[in-house]
């Protein structure tokens, strides 16, 4: 392994969270982002080739060293580590609406789910999976919610582009109704991911 890969390995090991390419580049400002990317790949291949118990995973907008799935049950049995608890069906449904409709207000979420759910929104906010990303231009200027990097981490995906496209599911989703002004950053965010 080259020195840059070693440095990256040390950083990923010591940080118990995903580190972005930019953060990893801070380790050595003299190298390019592409070189950092190559070094990350080299580290990943190193772990895979030698059959390590951990691997480099791209998720939540960055990279993190995680244990391999096959080892999970042994780790849990020995009480060395514990799987995170599952989300409830109500939380998953709410997350699904927000992930695909963001930025989206509570009224629209409740309308789609057919259930009033302030409690669920609060719980998701407390767990850091969603956040307030703005206010609607509509009546009463209600709060608009969007997903956080922690949400991507929860699913183990790199970015929102890794969500399956809506038309990959059996039934097509209604196109989102415009709730924000077109110049809003949040609206551009949704369009970029559409």
């Amino acid at each position, binding site marked *: 392994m080259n020195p840059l890969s070693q440095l990256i390995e040390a950083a990923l090991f010591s940080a118990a969270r995903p580190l972005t390419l930019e953060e990893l580049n801070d380790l050595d400002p003299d190298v390019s982002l592409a070189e950092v990317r190559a070094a990350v790949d080299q580290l990943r291949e190193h772990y895979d080739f030698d059959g390590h118990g951990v691997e480099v995973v791209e998720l939540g907008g960055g990279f993190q060293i995680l244990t391999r799935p096959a080892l999970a049950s042994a780790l849990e049995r020995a009480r060395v580590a514990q799987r995170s608890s599952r989300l409830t069906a109500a939380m*998953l449904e709410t997350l*699904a609406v927000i992930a695909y409709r963001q930025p989206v207000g509570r009224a629209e979420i409740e309308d789609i*789910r057919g259930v009033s759910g302030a409690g669920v929104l609060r719980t998701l906010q407390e767990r850091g999976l969603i956040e307030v990303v703005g206010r609607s231009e509509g009546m009463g200027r209600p709060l608009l919610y969007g997903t956080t990097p922690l949400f991507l981490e929860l699913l183990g995906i790199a970015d929102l582009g890794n969500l*399956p496209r809506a038309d990959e599911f059996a*039934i097509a989703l209604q196109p989102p109704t415009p709730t924000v002004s077109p110049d809003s950053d949040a609206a551009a965010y949704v369009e970029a991911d559409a």
Partner: protein
Amino acid sequence: MTAPEAPSLGLGSGNAFVVELEQFTGPLDLLLHLLREEQIEISDIPIARIADQFLRVIHELGLNQAADYLEMASRLVRLKAQMLLPRPGDEEGWEDPRAELVRRLLEYQHIKEIALWMDRMADRRSLRMPRGYLPPPPELPPPPLTLDLLEVLGAVERVIAGILHPVMHSVVARPLNVEAATGRIQALLAERDEISWAEALGPAPSITDVLSTLLALLEMARRGQLVVRQPAPFTPLVIRREPALAAD
């Protein structure tokens, strides 16, 4: 749809109304379940039959007091009535009253599929452990914390009862009397050149008398009317009149 936190709120006046929602996440979920059970196409729902079943099920599950379910029930009953109305001659011009319900069901079914996919993804992800395991925090009681007035008053009473000796503090207006102490010392020094601290204090001094005397002595020493001396550490103070006073 606007009722807060339904279906956890009861409309009945009696007992607190709690619904176990493990089975269904809402009226649309229940409706989809009924359609699946009957193997019915969403696009062609026999409204009359489904409306009756929906009402029966929410009654059995005790959901008939939950606002979200009630709203759906009334919607179904209205649809049932609309379907009974005679249609205009040509089928083309007929607008299916079920269209809105069908759209919502399809949309909801889609969300459920995504939710299922997310659940699988999160489950797979949770098999990969990060470094730095922290035990999960203990389960907190569900917010919001609800207290009734009697509970709050009871708690206040318990706190007050726990205070054993309330600290009472009485305030006395102008407890120090420096002028009187000054007069007493001047009178004593008019008779003798030297007096002791005990003499300056007078008989049976209180703590305020001690402080008044001390302040009087310091003030008089500052004006040069007397000198305060202590022959050795911890011996009584000796107060001696300054010659200047004698000259007055």
